[in-house]
């Protein structure tokens, strides 16, 4: 079998940790080393019915990096990440303004098929949601749908190895995925997402339903996966953002004049800067625990 995990090369961007002593140290910003801009979000607003969930969000997401979206409950983090693969399309009252350019293509364009968007931009949800099928069939599902049926077994094995799950499930591929533990189920969902070889993986609070050990294994996995994928992760856990992300976007809630409340992007920068030397007072209050 030729599928060995991609060799662990030295990361182009060093793993950023909160370390106040290193603030200002010579270290290239993720923006500078970034190979490419994958998403350009331009004045994105999203609405459910008439209520705005997020308003006027603009920033760029870079390739082969982990970008964390943090912020208090109700600030539109999930709404935002679901815009990136048009998952909100399935919600009847949903509507959005502004633009999301994905490799310079407007994702909301009339001729853009949401199905092919989702095929290139995978997603892992808050609660593990494996299908009530076997472990193998879960990973093979997307492959079969998309007609990637050559070497199905190899592809499944490769995806499970990439998701650091192969060791644990190689002898029970035929068993129901529902018999796996929560952490294993979530890694299975990650394997399922990467099996179809997307460019981007979106993770919507992937560890919020998991215990600390399973959370750690998911975080380790992200460090490995960013070698090959652009990763966007929503998390309400600031330590997690600090541990895994190169770039961090802080969303918060703003009140409109009419008393409505909606999410806004407050600050977007290198994770290290957000956590040690934020430009905005609101960011500082949040990361130091004075708010939210």
């Amino acid at each position, binding site marked *: 079998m030729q599928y060995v995990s991609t060799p662990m090369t030295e990361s182009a961007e060093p793993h950023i940790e909160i370390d106040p002593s290193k603030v200002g140290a010579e270290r290239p910003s993720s923006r500078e080393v970034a190979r490419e801009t994958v998403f350009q979000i331009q004045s994105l607003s999203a609405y459910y019915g008439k209520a705005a969930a997020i308003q006027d969000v603009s920033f760029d997401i870079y390739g082969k990096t982990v970008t964390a979206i943090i912020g208090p409950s109700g600030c539109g983090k999930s709404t935002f990440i679901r815009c990136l*693969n048009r*998952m909100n399309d*399935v919600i*009847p009252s949903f509507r959005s303004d502004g633009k999301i350019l994905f490799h310079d293509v407007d994702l909301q364009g009339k001729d853009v098929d949401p*199905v*092919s968007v*989702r*095929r*290139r931009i*995978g*997603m892992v*949800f808050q*609660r593990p*949601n*494996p*299908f*009530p099928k076997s472990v193998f069939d879960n990973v093979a*599902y*997307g492959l079969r*749908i*998309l007609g990637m049926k050559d070497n199905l077994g190899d592809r499944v094995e490769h995806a499970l190895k990439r998701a650091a799950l192969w060791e644990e499930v190689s002898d029970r591929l035929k068993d*129901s995925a*529902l*018999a796996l533990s929560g952490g294993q189920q979530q890694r299975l*969902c990650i394997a*399922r*997402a990467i099996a*179809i070889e997307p460019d981007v993986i979106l993770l919507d609070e992937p560890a919020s339903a998991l215990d600390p050990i399973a959370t750690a294994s998911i975080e380790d996995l992200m460090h490995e996966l960013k070698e090959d994928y652009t990763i966007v992760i929503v998390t309400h856990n600031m330590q997690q953002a600090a541990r895994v992300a190169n770039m961090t976007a802080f969303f918060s809630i703003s009140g409109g004049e009419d008393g409505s409340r909606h999410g806004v992007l407050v600050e977007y920068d290198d994770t290290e800067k957000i956590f040690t030397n934020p430009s905005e007072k609101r960011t500082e209050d949040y990361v130091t625990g004075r708010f939210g």
Partner: protein
Amino acid sequence: MSNAALTARSLTSEHRRRRRIVNWLMEGLATLSALAAVALLVIVVGSVAKRGAGALDLDFFTKNPSFLGFGQGGSGIANAIVGTFIIVGLAILMALPVGILAAIYLNEFAPRRIASAVTVAFDVLNGVPAIVIGIFVFVFIVAGHGQAGVKGAFALAILMLPLVTRSTQEVLALVPNAMREASLALGAPRWRTTLNVVLPMAVGGIITGATLATARVAGETAPLLFTSSLAGNTVSWNPTEPLASIPMFIFTSAEQADPALQEKAWGAALVLITFVLVASIIARAFGLRSRRRLTGGR
């Protein structure tokens, strides 16, 4: 009153006694009602069994009825069993695909407003009395053209349709949205998601609903009265001519003066009840399997 005083009051024996009596009373009433329902079932099934058991022998299932002559009337209901089998089978073939597809449309694809309007329409159709359906079919396709088993099946299918649709809708609604999202997020189109994820999870429940709907219409007499009642006394497999059926046999035999025929009617009723009972048990088994699937399989 302070909290402490309230607590003290509720702890006094007087209050406890009252609470216990009310509790005992309500529990008793509820239990009695449940027992009454079971008792009714036992009385109905028991009396049918008592009167009809005597009619059940091999001839009853293999021979055709005869309404000729006092004392020698009727030997079996073979033609009615075959007829019911064909009519109900055709009704299933007509109602099941339409009902399931309608439910899939309403639950998976239709805009919410259309879905709720159509759902109400199905509920209304469900409430239309069977005899009205019978007259409707009679006026439109029987009058002037003659009766036929397939026309009876059509009437039964109209009765089955809302039952199948509504029960399928309910099962589809039980499939967690997370499953649909998981599939859509993998680049699966909506129809593949429905076909490969939603339906496999719901299939047990759909079969349950279909089986219960079948059991429900198998005993319908009114629609057949207009559409397939003028059947001969021999076994016929041809649905383009009127076919005998168990409900029609019960209806006509029970009115006869010949006590032997009356006993045959009870026997036919027993066969019908047994059929419904077996169908319900099968439906339950599928339903349980489906629920286990939907709730995690452990």
